[in-house]
């Protein structure tokens, strides 16, 4: 039955014609919007000008990369991106697990539903609105925090000119926006635990806290590890929406808040430096790709079912 070569190929082409017709729109879309731009990474090696475009501009060797690394910006944005992501991953994981564990302990159904819904609320709004909220809370003149500080006789803090406080502010909003959404996965894992294990822990004399630490947490470890690894896969990706809406073009804060994605954006839009922006983007894409490969290997070592490919 099995045929090889051209004949077989065309036979299959005919046999699958309806399937291929159905796939065509998505395939064409992906070719144009994902694969064609991959060829555009040559911009990273060009001295880009509008007239020449991607292909007509003169070559620039590795100058774009050299500029990125020599300017000192590379070290800064890579450090910031990785540290922020580690911070976000660690704190988000702990808070989301805590929320999931405590939500399942709530015996009052309505209380559980209402609190969970409220926690889910921030997920639905755009980062633009979160930016307004941050202003509402942290603005130097009218912010809620400064209102409280002055009420107790303290000195106002000028948050938007004090870079050191921004890791905390960004962490707060990262947790705030992701807590309802993120805890759903852990809730699902908790629901999957066989209750008979709890009963036997009870018979063995474990109190509820011991039950949580020695039964519940170990039982959701597989889920936790998989989610952690997947999150680590994106460690070189900065959340542009978040950083741009909370920090914006406030240069005073860049030392503490500039990440790879915001720098790429500014190099493109503010400085019109296509070459360098493309170089940073390519550098980031390669880093991300390598990380995902490593992470996938690790996931595979842990549990083959969860590997991505």
């Amino acid at each position, binding site marked *: 039955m099995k045929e090889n070569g051209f004949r077989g190929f065309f036979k299959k082409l005919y046999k699958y014609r309806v399937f291929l017709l159905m796939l065509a729109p998505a395939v064409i879309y992906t070719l144009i919007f994902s694969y064609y731009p991959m060829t555009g990474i040559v911009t990273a090696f060009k001295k880009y000008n509008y007239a020449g475009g991607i292909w007509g501009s003169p070559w620039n060797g590795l100058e774009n990369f050299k500029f990125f690394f020599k300017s000192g910006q590379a070290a800064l944005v890579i450090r910031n991106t990785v540290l922020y992501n580690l911070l976000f991953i660690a704190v988000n994981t702990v808070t989301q697990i805590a929320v999931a564990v405590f939500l399942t302990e709530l015996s009052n159904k309505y209380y559980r539903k209402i609190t969970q819904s409220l926690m889910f609320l921030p997920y639905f709004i755009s980062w633009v609105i979160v930016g307004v909220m941050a202003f509402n809370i942290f603005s130097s003149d009218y912010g809620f925090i400064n209102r409280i500080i002055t009420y107790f006789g303290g000195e106002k803090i000028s948050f938007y000119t004090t870079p050191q406080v921004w890791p905390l502010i960004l962490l707060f909003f990262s947790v705030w926006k992701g807590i*309802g959404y993120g805890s759903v996965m852990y809730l699902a894992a908790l629901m999957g635990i066989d209750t008979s294990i709890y009963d036997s822990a009870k018979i063995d004399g474990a109190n509820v806290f011991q039950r949580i630490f020695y039964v519940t947490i170990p039982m959701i470890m597989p889920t936790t590890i998989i989610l952690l690894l997947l999150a680590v896969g994106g460690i070189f990706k900065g959340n542009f929406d978040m950083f741009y809406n909370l920090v914006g073009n406030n240069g005073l804060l860049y030392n503490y808040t500039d990440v790879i994605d915001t720098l790429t954006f500014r190099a493109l839009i503010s400085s019109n430096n296509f070459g360098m*922006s493309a170089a940073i*983007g390519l550098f980031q894409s390669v880093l991300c790709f390598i990380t995902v490969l490593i992470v996938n290997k690790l996931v595979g070592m842990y549990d083959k079912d969860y590997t991505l490919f």
Partner: protein
Amino acid sequence: MKSDKHSNKIKRGSDVIALNIISYAFCGIVALVCLVPFVMIVSGSFSSEKAILQNGFSILPQQFSLEAYKTVFKDPIVILRAYCTTICLTIVGTVVGLLLQTMTAYVLSRKDFGWRNAFSLFFYFTTLFSGGLVPYFILITQTLNLRDNYLALLLPLIFSVYNLLIMKSYIMGIPDSLIEAAKIDGGGEFLILFKIVLPLIKPALATVGLFIALAYWNDWYNAMLYIKSEEKYPLQYFLYQRVNNIEAYKKLLSNAAASSVASAVSLPTQTLKMALTVVVTGPIVLAYPLAQKYFVQGITIGAVKG
């Protein structure tokens, strides 16, 4: 023996009570922290500008006032236009996106399609490696020449591999025998998809549809990159522009209300930002209790590999 058992029971009781108190308190506090920023925006919008300038923002409204809303609606056309843009984009994008994703997922889930692994990899690879911002920007603005075109807002969000994977894992849940039977009855693939598969994956359509809709509704990034004319701004970018250039907005509003003597200076600033945010946020906050259930489904399914 008996007393021992008794004390044990009390001990067990007290730790259960302690955990209960901690759980109720913890969830209550987290929920409140999630809610408070929303309340503060609403309170700010209903406060008088004078009170805010004097005291700053608070959790409850100060000197209740509708001044900010009156100012916003001095020129309601601009907001309505932004609303229209966003609603139209969301509807068109969601319908077309769903169709595209369902059709693709259906083919990739068919076990008798010998090339499905190759095509799956073709789509999946794009999530692992991308050209980055610059080539994409050049594609939209120069190759396709879509600058300041609504298509630059529509196309980037219309297809996503993550949604494709969610959809695919749903469709894989349909028993093969159903599709086989339909095939034997002489149904073409399109007929099977629309008559057999679609009615069975209604929850998936709702989930993926809501993911797509939310992405369109909250999109400001594509507008920032590609849209130059103010009258084409979608809602979130409209808000972004107005809040960040509030003085320009006030000028616009005072011009719109030319008949009144109100000059831009006399219009509120801080409360105006809040009122505008409320007007933009309102619908999504009202709609989310209905949508939440489907999102929860989607997150859980999305984690299962497609």
